[in-house]
């Protein structure tokens, strides 16, 4: 297997270098403006490439970047599935590009589409009402926990704690803290799942909610989910579902049916909206009927054959300045509409099949199972991070490494439904090759990428976060 990524050429190399934009900066004076001088700046220095130069600059930068269309991307917990092209076109429709301050009556199409998407997501999650406002998964978590808080306060029931398994996503902990809760960390049982006894010990009349991912970060279904729900509900707490792993369960189980009261959907995972190098995503939140009155302001409902915004009676207020990440929601609508029941159910089937097949083909041990859409292999005695760097040289994106910590030198692997058998066999060959390599080779990887191994320590000891910081050094 041979792989070489585009890179900038060396300074002493005579090959063509398109443009390092910082070398093309130009400073202009700000003078004779329509504002008085004391209200204006003196000058502005920015890159000033001509359009052909700009095009080459960013094209070359794109060649120094790896996306889902570049090759396999089995990054655990991230669901890097193929992003259908046509959804981009729908998100860019001119009649969808409306201003958020328009009266409801003039954006009935937008409201109709939002109403339809709310309904679809509710069906998929088994939830009674859905808000589209949260602009990301973590924003969905924050919305959901604020809803739980408002619900308890509405019942004159002040609670101070949120219970979270030790294997949960970092966002869960940070969200609970942001909402003003103390975090109670729940140790995982020996089988990698929630330990009911530990849960009973952790839950009390202070418990506002338990945040749970199912299947969990090891890909394991929490088989005791009904008992878990009972423990939390008996204590007066709510059950929050982190939708990060929903791609495992489409059409097999729904959070609402498992006893969850609040959930968020990661549309950039489950519903194939592109990750965009870190974002934008969207994190719609679904709730049961009892919590519908607490949804963010405003919410869409149908009225007299049309649609309108209204403020739910006990609304938690707003979590985004407007209506959320609208173009991303359009892509979500497009994906769900395209796939329908048959496609969504098949997506989960193939995602689970792919994860199980890949695990079977690779030489690394997978200590916990049965898993669904992802598995966590152990690279031990190799260093998982080093093994991952070496996988880059084999032309594939590596798994998530060293997390969750319950597995020694974790390789958290999620191939998604988008890989064919042939592609999985090639991916397995990359695992196989890396498995056979010595520590020295791994530690010096990667070699065939745009940059060699990057010095993280230097980056953090001497933070240089702008051209200006680089300039002031020289």
């Amino acid at each position, binding site marked *: 297997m041979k792989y070489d990524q585009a890179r900038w050429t060396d300074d002493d190399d005579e090959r063509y270098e398109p443009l390092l934009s910082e070398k093309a900066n130009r400073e202009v004076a700000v003078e004779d403006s329509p504002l008085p001088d004391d209200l*204006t700046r003196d000058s502005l220095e920015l890159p000033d490439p001509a359009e052909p130069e700009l095009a080459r600059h960013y094209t070359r930068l794109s060649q120094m970047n790896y996306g889902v269309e570049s090759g396999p991307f089995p990054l655990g917990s991230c669901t890097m599935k193929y992003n259908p092209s046509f959804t981009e076109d729908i998100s860019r429709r001119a009649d969808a590009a409306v201003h958020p301050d328009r009266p409801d009556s003039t954006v009935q199409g937008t409201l109709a589409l939002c109403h339809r998407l709310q309904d679809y997501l509710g069906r998929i999650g088994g939830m009674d009402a859905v808000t589209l406002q949260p602009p990301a998964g973590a924003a969905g978590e924050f919305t959901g926990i604020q809803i739980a808080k408002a619900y308890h306060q509405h019942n004159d029931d002040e609670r101070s704690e949120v219970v979270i398994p030790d294997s949960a996503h970092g966002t869960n*902990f940070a969200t609970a803290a942001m909402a003003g809760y103390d975090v109670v960390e729940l140790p995982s049982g020996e089988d990698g799942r929630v330990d009911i006894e530990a849960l009973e010990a952790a839950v009390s009349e202070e418990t506002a909610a338990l945040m749970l991912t199912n299947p969990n970060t090891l890909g394991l279904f929490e*088989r005791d989910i009904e008992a878990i729900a009972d423990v939390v509900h008996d204590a007066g707490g709510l059950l929050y579902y982190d939708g990060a792993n929903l791609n495992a369960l489409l059409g097999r189980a729904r959070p609402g049916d498992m006893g969850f009261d609040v959930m968020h959907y990661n549309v950039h995972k489950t519903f194939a909206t592109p990750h965009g190098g870190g974002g*934008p995503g969207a994190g719609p939140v679904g709730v049961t009927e009892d919590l519908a009155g607490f949804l963010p302001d405003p919410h869409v409902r149908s009225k007299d054959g049309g649609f309108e915004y209204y403020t739910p009676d006990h609304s938690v207020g707003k979590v985004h300045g407007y209506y959320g990440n609208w173009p991303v929601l359009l892509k979500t609508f497009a994906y769900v509409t395209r*796939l329908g029941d048959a496609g969504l159910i098949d997506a989960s089937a193939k995602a689970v*099949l792919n994860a199980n097949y890949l695990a079977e083909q690779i030489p690394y041990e997978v200590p916990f199972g049965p898993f669904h859409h992802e598995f966590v292999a152990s690279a031990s005695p190799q260093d998982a991070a080093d093994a991952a760097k070496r996988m880059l040289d084999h032309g594939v994106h590596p798994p998530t490494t060293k997390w969750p910590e319950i597995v020694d030198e974790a390789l958290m692997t999620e191939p998604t439904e988008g890989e064919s058998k042939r592609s999985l066999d090639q991916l397995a060959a990359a695992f196989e090759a890396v498995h056979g390599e010595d520590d020295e080779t791994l530690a010096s990887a990667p070699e065939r990428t745009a940059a060699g191994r990057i010095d993280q320590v230097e980056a953090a000891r001497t933070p240089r*976060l*702008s051209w200006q910081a680089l300039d002031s050094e020289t």
Partner: protein
Amino acid sequence: MSESDVSTTGSPYAPHTPAETAAMLEALGVDDVEALFDVPDAVAFDGDFGIDARGERETRREAARLLRRNDDLTEFLGRGHYDHYVPSVVDDLSKRSEFLTSYTQYQPEIAQGFLQALFEYQSMLVELTGLGVANCSMYDAATALGEAATLSQRVRSVSGDRILVPEHLRDGKHAVLENYADGPDLSVESYPMDDGQADVAALAEMADEDVAMVYAETPSVRGVVAENLASVGDVTDDHDALFCLGSDPVALALLERPADVGADVVVGDAASLGIGTAYGFGLGMFVTREEYLRQVPGRLVGASEDANDRRAYTLTLQTREQHIRKERATSNICTNQAWVALRTAMHAAWLGPQGLVDLAEECVTRAEGLATRLDEVVGLQAPVHDGHHFREFVVRTDQPARAVVEDLAARGYAVHAVDEHLLQVCTTEVTADEEAAFVEAMAEVAR
């Protein structure tokens, strides 16, 4: 892939042939893929969603059918969400799949392209604000303001729990701030405005040692260019509070640098470059002083060297973030708006420094020109506030504002009703050719 067989064959984006599926199942020793699901019967879902699959063309048609119900209006709307012309090259380049379909840059060796683009974005914001550290995005202006409020709680030199915000503030922004303020128990209070400017005397009167942050905007939500920011900064300084300034990259190309008026944090919507009208879809700008570096929320791209001693970029100072620091992280943000930041950087580079300054100047002259023409219309006075305006201004109308909005909609235009007799009008280069007809329509409905 044909259009006709979509409803029966499953996901069009799972490439398995039946033979491959069979071979994979055989390798796993199971007959049916359902055997791989470990879901107890009690919670298994055996219904259906009732969502019919459609072909790609049919899906596009369905989206078109729904969206057709949006009225085709020429929008003179702003108040934080602006329409500037985005060149085609930004669309084309940003849509390259290596950018669009990539993940957060946790493997920097294969993400140098996006990292460098984000480094460029951060650098542009440093230049525009004069402050030392820009993160590579928050969700939008409102959430960035919320994050600034929580930052004030982590900065050692600041104590107190009062956040002072201007009376003229977008409701949505205020509401989001309230949610961010809820966890740390901060109280959000409004200080008065005097003819569109912060009433500094009143602000000074309100301020005490319990103030953690003072927020001001330029231009304000009503489009007024602030003239007394340094005084706001002084009041803030007197009480060891953070001075947070709201703006956007187009305005910052022309207006005095936030660092020069004493701002500690700059927030706002940077998608005024790169996106255009998108129903409030934005890009939270967050820039602050270097001394607060370790309290910054969100991701930061830094320069470093690779194993061959060549310049390389990487996400850095990640111990601030949720995936490492969990409940003690500076924010819960994970997924951000990186791709929007990429577009904003591209758009700014396309304009270049002169182009950006010219655009900002046009925002002033165009707003003031349209206000002058509307002021000549019987039944209208514009602008209501003295002072300079940027893109937009408030208009007093003798007719009820809501009736004017409705009458204008019937004529194909959208404006915003601020209250019973105040309208707000925004114009940019995108609406330039429509201004004359808009003034005529206003003349018809305003008398």
